């Protein structure tokens, strides 16, 4: 039986990270992360480049193993899990990658239907219906037969989200969803994250350095600096943070607005 940590928060915790340490060679990237993600909420992990955001997210889905610490997903510590058990855990997740990571040899339809073909025995007609519905949620239609190379960056990201939510996961992870997008598309992606939460009731974890976007979609924000969560809480609480790095980071946006 995997060791578990009872959730102390009143709302159920779906992901809990306890004293997570990770080093690559000499460089220590995560230096003792403690984090809780309440079920059904949106947590944004905010931080500058090289702060360890992506590394932290990869631990949540078991793509990386920590040097020490626990990653508890839905009541189970996934750190000691082998490949087979991790596959079971990963079915609870959908992940939207920074550059979408769509399979470029497949059409949009094949990309979005891929998890269904792998993990369900749905007949083709039903698969087609589910794909159309998920593409509808992300605001896309008539793109099924296109290849990823024929789509814009924003559209690829939306197809990536459709693929991530096609199996109705409990948790969706977003790796820098608004990086490299124009302001209008950024706004659209923010709406898409909010819609996914509203329509599907998923828990979302977003890693980002986009302050405006973070404050728009987050229920909670955790600020990651040099491998440590230096402050966390609701957006309005974080805005009044006294931590010098958080203040400096937020000033770059709120100082101008």
């Amino acid at each position, binding site marked *: 039986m995997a060791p578990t940590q009872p959730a102390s928060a009143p709302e159920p915790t779906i992901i809990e990270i306890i004293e997570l340490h990770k080093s690559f060679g000499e460089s220590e990237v995560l230096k003792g992360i403690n984090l809780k993600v309440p079920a059904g909420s949106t947590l944004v992990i905010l931080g500058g480049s090289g702060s360890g955001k992506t590394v932290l997210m990869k631990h949540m889905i078991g*793509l990386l193993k920590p040097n020490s610490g626990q990653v508890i997903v839905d009541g189970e510590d996934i750190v000691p899990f082998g*490949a087979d058990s991790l596959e079971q855990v*990963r079915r609870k997740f959908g992940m939207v990658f920074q550059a979408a*990571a769509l*399979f470029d040899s497949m059409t949009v339809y094949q990309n979005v239907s891929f*998890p269904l073909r792998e993990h369900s025995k749905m007949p083709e007609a039903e698969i087609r219906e589910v794909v159309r519905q998920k593409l509808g949620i992300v605001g896309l239609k008539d793109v099924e037969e296109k290849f990823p190379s024929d789509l814009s960056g924003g559209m690829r990201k939306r197809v990536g989200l459709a693929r991530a939510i096609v199996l109705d996961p409990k948790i969706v*992870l977003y790796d820098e969803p608004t990086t490299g997008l124009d302001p209008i598309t950024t706004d659209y992606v923010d709406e898409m994250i909010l819609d996914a939460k509203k329509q599907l009731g998923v828990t979302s974890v977003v890693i980002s350095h986009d302050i405006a976007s973070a404050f728009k979609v987050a229920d909670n924000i955790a600020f990651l600096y040099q491998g440590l969560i230096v402050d966390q809480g609701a957006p309005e609480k974080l805005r009044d943070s006294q931590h010098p790095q958080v203040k400096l980071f937020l000033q770059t946006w709120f100082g101008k607005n």
Partner: protein
Amino acid sequence: MASSDTTDVGPPPQKPPNPLYSAVESFGSVFVNVVEDIGGLAQLLFQVVKLAIRPPYRVMNLFNQLDFVGVGSIFIVALNGVFSGMVFAQQSARAFELFNAESLVGPTVALTITRELAPVFTALMVTMRAGSAMCTELGTMRVTEQIDALETMAVNPIQYLVVPRVLAGLIMVPLLTLVFDMTGLLGGYFVSVTVKGLSAGSFITRTQQWLDAEDIFEGLIKGAVFGLFIALVACFKGYFAHGGAKGVGQATTQAMVLSAVGIFMLDYFVGVILH
């Protein structure tokens, strides 16, 4: 030439502190890299064997790879086979003419092609055509996070991507070796009989006398070993590529060099084991 006094200006070039030390260091790092590659290949092979025998079976992926590695390579292997047979017949006919032993051209061409040239040249052709593509494709999928995406979707990327490619190498290179055997013999026959004017009957009879099924079988075993090796190397280097476009380029170069060198080394060792 040694420089004159007038050019003797400034401090003399600084020598490395200890040339022996740096020589040992560079030899050591090459050795470590080779050992790392061998260890990595062995680990990947173990994974491939384990995942190949358990479901889900990726039948469509396997057929796609069989088509790409095998069917797609028939033409260049056949073309290479014809010309290799022609060149070999041409050269051996010149040599055997000196001893009035032209009737041995057929068996010489047949034995050399079936036992050595066919598996080695076929494997080199498949390395260049299919191995490079496998390595680049997997490398690109790695650096664009498509392999991570497979993992997050609870799909084992080794089972999905590597197993079909390695099986395709294992199955198709021996079959292509047969294609090389046939076209090589045809090329040898054409030059011996049509160009050099040797007796067709003697070419065929002598070849039948000397060429045994074991010779062809030896070539097929070598083909299977080479096919497994080159597909495994291409997948290994591509799967673990990192560092963007440059990293993928470097991985492909390494895969090609390792495959080519490995084919010749394995050729010797498999030959020794079979005899």
